[in-house]
């Protein structure tokens, strides 16, 4: 019994240590600076929502939030569709060079972004895409292809053959087999893949830091860095900025918790 209690204590403490920094940060965002200095853990006299307005407008968080959202959507949808197509090609067809092409597409899992980001910068400069959302969207789709192809090939290879054959007998061509049979059948996995692409894109820092210098095209992670450098001593404002970033993530996490945890742990096991 004592041992059991000890184990629970272990878990509760571990859980609290993981969550508390976020809670205290949100708490601080609702206080004034004097209140923080006086007692950092106390509740504020009345919640100071003005800080959020300040972060949202003066801190340009509305802009960063908009950019992050647009980029995430513009990355996730084509990444999922293209991954489904490449995965389908490898799972369903035998063709010359398939092994080599598959290995080629997996380069992205081996080479870290750090090694590509510098040439990528100059490539984007040559085609005049620096300081635009395209500079984030196109490379991020490309970076998604390795994991996406790997996952979708597996997913489609495990779709029962009878179902596919039946639809072929019904006169479906290969395009219809992909989008009307395979894709809907693999929906749970595709959902997980989309979620992972979303999180990876939303959290990406190095790419936007390097390719976009103009703050108009910053996403949230880069935005908060410059924000922190500029308002070093305005704790409530930084805390509000941080909360604006992690609150949507926490919401998405709470909604899709099971899928996300499974996806991220299995994704790691595959990588």
């Amino acid at each position, binding site marked *: 019994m004592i*041992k*059991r209690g000890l*184990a629970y204590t*272990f*878990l509760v403490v*571990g859980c*609290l240590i*993981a969550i508390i920094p*976020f809670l*205290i940060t949100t708490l601080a965002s609702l206080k004034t600076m004097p209140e923080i200095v006086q007692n*950092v*853990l106390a509740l504020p006299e009345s919640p100071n929502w003005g800080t959020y307005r300040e972060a949202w407008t003066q801190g340009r968080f509305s802009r960063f939030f908009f950019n992050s959202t647009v980029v995430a959507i513009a990355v996730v949808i*084509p990444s999922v569709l293209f*991954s489904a197509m*490449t995965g389908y*090609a490898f799972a*369903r*067809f*035998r*063709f010359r060079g398939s092994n080599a092409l598959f290995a080629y*597409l997996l*380069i*992205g899992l081996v080479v*870290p972004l*750090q*090694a*590509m*980001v*510098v*040439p*990528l910068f*100059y*490539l984007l400069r040559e085609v005049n895409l620096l300081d635009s959302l395209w500079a984030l969207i*196109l490379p991020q*789709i*490309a*970076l998604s*292809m390795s994991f996406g192809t790997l996952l979708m090939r597996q997913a489609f290879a495990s779709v029962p053959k009878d179902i596919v*054959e039946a639809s072929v007998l019904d006169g479906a*061509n290969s395009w219809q087999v992909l989008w009307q049979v395979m894709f809907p059948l693999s929906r749970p996995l595709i959902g997980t893949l989309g979620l992972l692409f979303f999180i990876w894109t*939303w*959290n990406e820092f*190095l790419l936007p830091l*390097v390719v976009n210098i103009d703050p108009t095209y910053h996403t*949230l*992670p880069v935005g*908060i*860095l410059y924000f*922190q450098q500029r308002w070093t001593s305005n*704790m409530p404002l*930084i805390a509000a*900025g941080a909360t604006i970033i992690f609150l949507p*993530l*926490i919401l998405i*996490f709470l909604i899709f918790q099971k899928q996300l*945890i499974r996806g*991220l*742990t299995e994704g*790691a*096991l595959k990588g």
Partner: protein
Amino acid sequence: MAGSSSSRQRRTGPWWEPYLYLLPGLIVFTLFVALPVIAAIGLSTTGWNGVSWDTATFVGADNFVRAFEEPRFWTALWHNLILIPYFVILPTILGLAPAALVHQMKLRGAGIFQAGLFLPYIMPGVLIGVVWRWMLNPVFGPVNTVLKDWGFDPPTWLADFSWALPTIGFIGAWAAYGFCYVVFVAGIQKIPTDLYDAARLDGANGWQEFMTVTLPGLRREIAVVLSVNLINALRAFDVVKATTDGGPGDSTSVLALFMMNTLDSNQAGYAISIAIVLSVVTLVLSLAMLKLFGDADD
């Protein structure tokens, strides 16, 4: 198998059909991943300054030699290595111990802790840095406020020459232990229960059970967790950038940061070489890690 009939039906389409499916993904991938990788390898052998192509003349392995002769390169690499116990070993132990304990005691309702424990893992590194930088603020940060209340005399953490790097290490461990826990919990459930029954029949106590059944059974998960954490330690950038930016002095410079600073000073070819060294070190060490733990039971 119905292989012959299905393969005949596959042939109904033209031979180039699969290539058509590959086309969109392949084009984007080639342009924005493969091309930069090839360019990186090529440019690492030039003295390119990143501004004018005239400077992109072949210099052989000079960039690499220069890196190996530069003390700051070794300092940065050394700091990455110092981070390994914090980023790799600490969270693995912190995840493994409760996972084994929960399983051994058949704790009910342990599942609800997973979400909370896992939360830091989905957060962007920069955000983690920003949050901890204020948490550890020496003047009004919550950590030191509490420690002072309890009568301790806490260091200034990220602002202290000798504490800054270990502090970043602890932040890395904090961000990863929940992930390790979740991976281990999932792995333990796959270990056949009769192995545990057999161990108990042999009179094994909890610790022996852990050593003879749980640990070997989790070999694959441990290998994966170690290599994922190792990659994070060697590629560390976001958290460092947001907390110390390499300071105070050079006390928390890491390879990725060193590379970025080189880039800012118009030495693109050199910066790319450092990135390639970083990639190779990461690849070699993580493959070694996987080989060490993963292959042994096959």
